[in-house]
């Protein structure tokens, strides 16, 4: 069992019940019920098109940007039903940050990339912003590499550095939950290892839900793993158990590479 789950004061920070999602007439998620606990790393695995990314994006309503999406069910994040009418989307996405598969820095300086979110949320004081930029870059383990060139373009960073910059940018608005959609799939093994180490450092302080195609990565970084297939949640378990002794035959076939 992940250490985070055993600590006192750990509770469900995300609680999804009977979630269904359609893209037009195609049902992409079927009756999903799944929770995430405070401070844990929850990995979502499954073959392409199984619904894991769709699920991830329901957690901060990124799917709202797609007009044909319809969602039914309950998604409670930090005690609030986020599909309720009165939800402030900007505030939801501040609390629940998202890091994408491909790093997407703004064509601005490193500093401005990080300061962008806090500025949108009203922070104008230079000294505050300086502090947030440094702290966020330190947390993303990038500070030492960029501290002397904060005004240089973020586009000049390597792929791995850009991805850590995006994580720093997500951290700058002080989220509670971080969603990661295959954050290392476009990176070389060394940069991937950095991202995985970073996830290890952030575990406990943030709740992290990560979608990954790399099962060894899920095994290395997560406390619990959920296996999706054809829009359904097949099995959820403590990662070390799911990868040594899965209960479901479909899970076993997928993780051992017999299908998918």
């Amino acid at each position, binding site marked *: 069992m992940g250490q985070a789950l055993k600590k006192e004061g750990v509770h469900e920070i995300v609680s999804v019940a009977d979630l269904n999602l359609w893209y037009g007439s195609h049902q992409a998620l079927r009756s999903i019920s799944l929770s995430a606990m405070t401070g844990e790393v929850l990995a979502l695995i499954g073959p392409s098109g199984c619904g894991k990314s769709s699920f991830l994006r329901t957690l901060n309503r990124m799917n709202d940007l797609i007009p044909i999406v319809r969602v039914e069910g309950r998604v409670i994040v930090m005690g609030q039903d986020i599909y309720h009418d009165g939800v402030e989307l900007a505030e939801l996405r501040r609390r629940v940050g998202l890091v994408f598969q491909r790093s997407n820095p703004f064509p601005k300086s490193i500093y401005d990339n990080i300061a962008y979110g806090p500025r949108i949320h009203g922070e104008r004081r230079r000294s505050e912003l300086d502090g947030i930029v440094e702290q966020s870059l330190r947390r993303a383990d990038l500070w030492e590499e960029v501290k002397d060139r904060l005004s240089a373009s973020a586009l000049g960073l390597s792929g791995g550095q850009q991805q850590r910059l995006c994580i720093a940018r997500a951290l700058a608005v002080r989220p509670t939950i971080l969603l990661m959609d295959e954050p290392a799939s476009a990176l070389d093994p060394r940069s991937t290892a950095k991202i995985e180490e970073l996830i290890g450092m952030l575990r406990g302080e943030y709740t992290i839900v990560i979608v990954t195609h790399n*099962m*060894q990565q899920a*095994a290395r970084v997560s406390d619990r793993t959920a296996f999706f297939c054809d829009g359904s949640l097949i099995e959820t378990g403590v990662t070390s158990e799911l*990868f*040594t*002794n*899965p209960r479901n035959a479909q*899970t*076993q076939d997928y*993780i*051992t*590479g*017999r*299908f998918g």
Partner: protein
Amino acid sequence: MTRHLDREIERLKEGVLGLSALVEESVYRAIRAVEECDPALAQLVIDEDTTIDQREVLVEEECLKILALYQPVAIDLRFLVAILKLNSDLERIGDLAGNIASRAKGLAALPRPTEPIDFGPMFAAAKGMLRGALASLVELDTKRALEVIRSDEALDDLNRANYRAIKQLIKDNPNDLDPLLHYLSVSRNLERIGDHCTNIAEDVVYMMEGKIVRHRVDEAW
């Protein structure tokens, strides 16, 4: 779809089954060498041990290669871990067969003791455990493996009974000390073979069920 890993595992299986057959043959021959006081057969067992040792190393290398190249999980991982462990047990059983064979040679060179020990029940029990353990491995049969684990106690009892009997015989016939010490060692080596058969059976249970039953077979089943 056949995976590369399936082909590797198939080859590994063949290697382990080949090793098992060699080990089984060695134990049977060692027992026969004691029963028939046959020093030539005993020497054959001792010579064959080198082959067993070499085959054990090959199986281990194959396991390590598969672990490094394929990073297996779930049933594949359990299979490899179990093979890695029971491979050592098979090699140790080979060593113990060699020890028994050495005692057979010693016994053949000495006059028969006044009252020989009847090893019939112990030979049968040890062979039964070995056959059961290897069958549970070949057939991936948890039920059979559990029977092997449970039967170890009976073999231990036979060993204890032999120990007591030999102790008494040494007191009664001190001139028979040398052959009786050989008997004692044969008994002890058979008991150890039973222990390794139990280990193999436990590894088969782990492989199939994902449960470690070592030290707690009764509470788990």
